[in-house]
């Protein structure tokens, strides 16, 4: 097995186009899978040598966050936690503190688990991935990247360089909650990200609702957004949100919970998440 650390996107895509190559960002998921012999790469391509994967930049149109930026670095950014607290919280729920120092948004997404913590937070925020490949660069909304467990909409040689997060709307707020059996280390039973924006009168003008761990891939629940848009996000609207979220879930039975349990908790969680997003939107 080889370890390579290219410094340019072109060098990275060339390596990744080869047989048995895998992207290495933080390494936390990858190493675990290599040890349990689920994966056996021939080449590890460490993308952290590429500047664009490690930076967070802010401009009028929003944030560009490198795919290998860690959860801890997201938290330390001076303004990101204020603008997108839900996204930052979601990224910092990945694993224990020691893992937070190393895990990345890109890695969490590309691991291809429907239960990935940071993904609903990104989807709710409207994150769009910038993908580099042998044929050039393209963009794709995060909700379109994971197709099924361990199956990504990336082709040979492609990797995610960074994510574009829009500027936070004037009266916007986001939140992420998840429900897990015991602690952060465990795999989520349900994860929910909600972002919404209000007009000056307090009516919701835009919303995005995303769920993790309740289907074969993280979901963008459009009916959930519709339940909130045009309302003051009162109890009636939240009840509709809860119902829409429950209708969208397609979870499985496993040792962490039955189908009914996960569907029920997803609805409860969505309401709680929306309430936090609402409070945040009202404060700014």
């Amino acid at each position, binding site marked *: 097995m*080889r*370890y390579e650390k290219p*410094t340019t996107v072109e060098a990275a895509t060339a*390596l990744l186009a080869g047989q048995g190559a895998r992207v*290495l960002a933080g390494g936390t*998921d990858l190493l675990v899978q290599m*040890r349990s012999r689920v994966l056996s790469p021939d080449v590890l391509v460490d993308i952290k040598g590429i500047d664009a994967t490690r930076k967070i930049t802010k401009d009028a149109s929003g944030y560009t966050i490198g795919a290998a930026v860690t959860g801890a670095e997201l938290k330390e950014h001076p303004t990101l936690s204020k603008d997108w607290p839900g996204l930052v919280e979601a990224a910092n729920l990945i694993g*224990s503190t*020691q893992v937070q120092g190393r895990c990345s948004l890109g890695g969490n997404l590309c691991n291809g688990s429907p*239960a990935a913590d940071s993904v609903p937070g990104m989807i709710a925020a409207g994150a769009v991935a910038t993908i580099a490949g042998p044929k050039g660069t393209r963009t794709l909304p995060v909700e379109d990247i994971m197709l099924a467990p361990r199956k990504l909409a990336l082709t040979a040689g492609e990797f995610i360089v960074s994510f574009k997060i829009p500027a936070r709307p004037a009266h916007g707020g986001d939140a992420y909650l998840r429900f897990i059996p015991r602690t952060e280390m465990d795999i989520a039973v349900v994860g929910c990200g909600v972002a919404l924006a209000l007009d000056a009168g307090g009516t919701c003008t835009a919303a995005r609702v995303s769920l993790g761990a309740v289907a074969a891939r993280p979901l963008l629940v459009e009916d959930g957004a519709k339940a909130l848009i045009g309302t003051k996000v009162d109890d009636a609207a939240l009840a509709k949100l809860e119902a829409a979220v429950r209708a969208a879930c397609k979870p499985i039975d496993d040792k962490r919970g039955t189908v009914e349990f996960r569907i029920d908790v997803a609805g409860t969680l969505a309401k709680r998440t929306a309430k936090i997003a609402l409070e945040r939107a009202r404060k700014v």
Partner: protein
Amino acid sequence: MSTDAEHTGSQGRSDPPARVTRRAALQTAASAVAFATAPASNAQQTGPTTSAAAEGSTIRLIVNGQPRTLSVDPRQSILDILRETLDLTGTKKGCNAGACGACTVLLNGQRINSCLALAAMHDGAEITTIEGLAKGDDLHPLQQAFIERDGLQCGYCTPGQIMSGVACISEGHAGSVQEIKAWMSGNICRCGAYAGIVEAISDVAKGGKL
């Protein structure tokens, strides 16, 4: 950290195979085990070329203040380098999967699970292990606090707990019992000495001795 545990169990296996077959990739892995001694330059990258590592590579680490130059296999973790190459056995292997915290060390001042840190990725890093905390005969305040507060029983998780605790305090995450419990949740203690561990960290955080 999330893995796909939902569809096929945490190992990703469904039906056990009738024959245990050889995996083609193993051919590569088996031959990569032997250490390559040809040095490769990872230290500086000039220009847009890749800095390629051969089967093995040389890295430089500063471990407990001592500069070390090491030949490493690309699959070796910092934990294995510490224990097997440098004979610093104070850091423990509890699960080798980043889930128990027994292998916690400080890397450039930050706490990491050394079992999940590929050595090859960390050329130039400064590492502090449990052996590097005390100054001669003077114990680090947190080591002393662990002893005073009965924060250990079998001692196996203890080096990881202490290193993690040092960082927890320097991160500013030791402001209350609840905060300490949350931010130390990456370190398992099966003997159940959590009460003493939290008190020890709290003592040192309050006392400002760090």
